[in-house]
């Protein structure tokens, strides 16, 4: 791969890679460091990238592995930092539920609250729109497990949104659940 190809094939997916790193780490600074690291690695290996079948999935897997390393290494540092980023904002519950429901922040917070595997899979599928085979390559899970986790994750996101939307109106939640 030439430097020119690198600019047209690899750099355009950097936003996708950054979103993924951010989704896993929940820390902008760390996500940026991971991205720079991985992009530099890809640049140094650009000669071999021509052989890679699916560059997106390949790069996503590199990002995921590096993020997991970062999480492992920071476990010994501070729990406070991680907690701060994981817990949803308490203040937001005081504003109008419907108003929050319309913000992307809410979806982000709900996804952030999901278990690790579900979070990664729903991100790769619904936000980055990867095929199941690509997700399998990026996460080293099989397609069946991915479908099961994706289904659970989507249902959880739906239920959380409905819970907030119909705050206090339990009837609607019930009918919505019945409809689906």
């Amino acid at each position, binding site marked *: 791969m030439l430097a020119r190809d690198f600019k047209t094939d690899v750099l355009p997916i950097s936003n996708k890679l950054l979103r993924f790193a951010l989704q896993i780490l929940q820390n902008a600074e760390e996500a940026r460091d991971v991205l720079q690291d991985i*992009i530099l690695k890809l640049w140094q290996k650009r000669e071999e990238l021509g052989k890679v079948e699916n560059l997106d999935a390949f790069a996503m897997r590199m990002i995921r592995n590096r993020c997991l390393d970062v999480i492992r290494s920071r476990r010994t540092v501070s729990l406070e930092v991680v907690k701060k980023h994981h817990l949803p904002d308490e203040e937001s519950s005081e504003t109008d539920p419907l108003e929050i429901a319309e913000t992307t922040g809410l979806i982000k917070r709900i996804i952030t609250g999901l278990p690790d595997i579900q979070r990664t899979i729903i991100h790769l599928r619904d936000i980055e729109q990867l095929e199941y085979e690509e997700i399998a390559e990026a996460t080293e899970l099989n397609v069946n497990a991915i479908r*099961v986790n994706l289904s659970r994750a989507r249902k959880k996101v739906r239920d959380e949104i409905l819970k907030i939307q119909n705050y206090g109106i339990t009837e609607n939640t019930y009918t919505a659940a019945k409809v689906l």
Partner: protein
Amino acid sequence: MESQRIHILLQKYFEAETTLVEENELITYFTSGEVDEKLKMYIPMFSGIRDISTEENADLSDELMDYILESEHKEKVKYRWMWQMVTGIAASVIVVMLSVNYYNSRTQWKDTFTDPQKAYAEASKTLDFVAGKYNQGLAQLRPIRKIESAVNPLNSGMKKLNKGFDKMNELNKKLKKE
């Protein structure tokens, strides 16, 4: 009609059975502004997903390219410095080796004889001289043997004395028993 189709797609979506095309259809429907009253509760979900997936930093590519070039430059400087070190050390080693070699070549042994027999005779004469001096030195150490012979009678006297002490010990023990 459309809402019925969307309904089916939603069911498939939550079972993770939709294709990417169908999922995009759902996103398009729920962000179109013309959503069935009964399905309005799903608008935030799909519009939220769309908004997250389009969040981009336009300068990111440029920033990353700058980062790559900067790191490469640093790497080059590092290698240049290492190369300078290695060549510097190699050059000084060569200089030292050359000067040692030059010094050695200046103090080379020179032949002083042309006839080998004469050389042999001279060498044996010299070695004889050295051997003679060595023997003279050894001869001066001969009196040390005298010390040894002088000590001998002293040793035999001591042995007798020791025997006497042993006997006295035995007598002591016997006396104690009695």
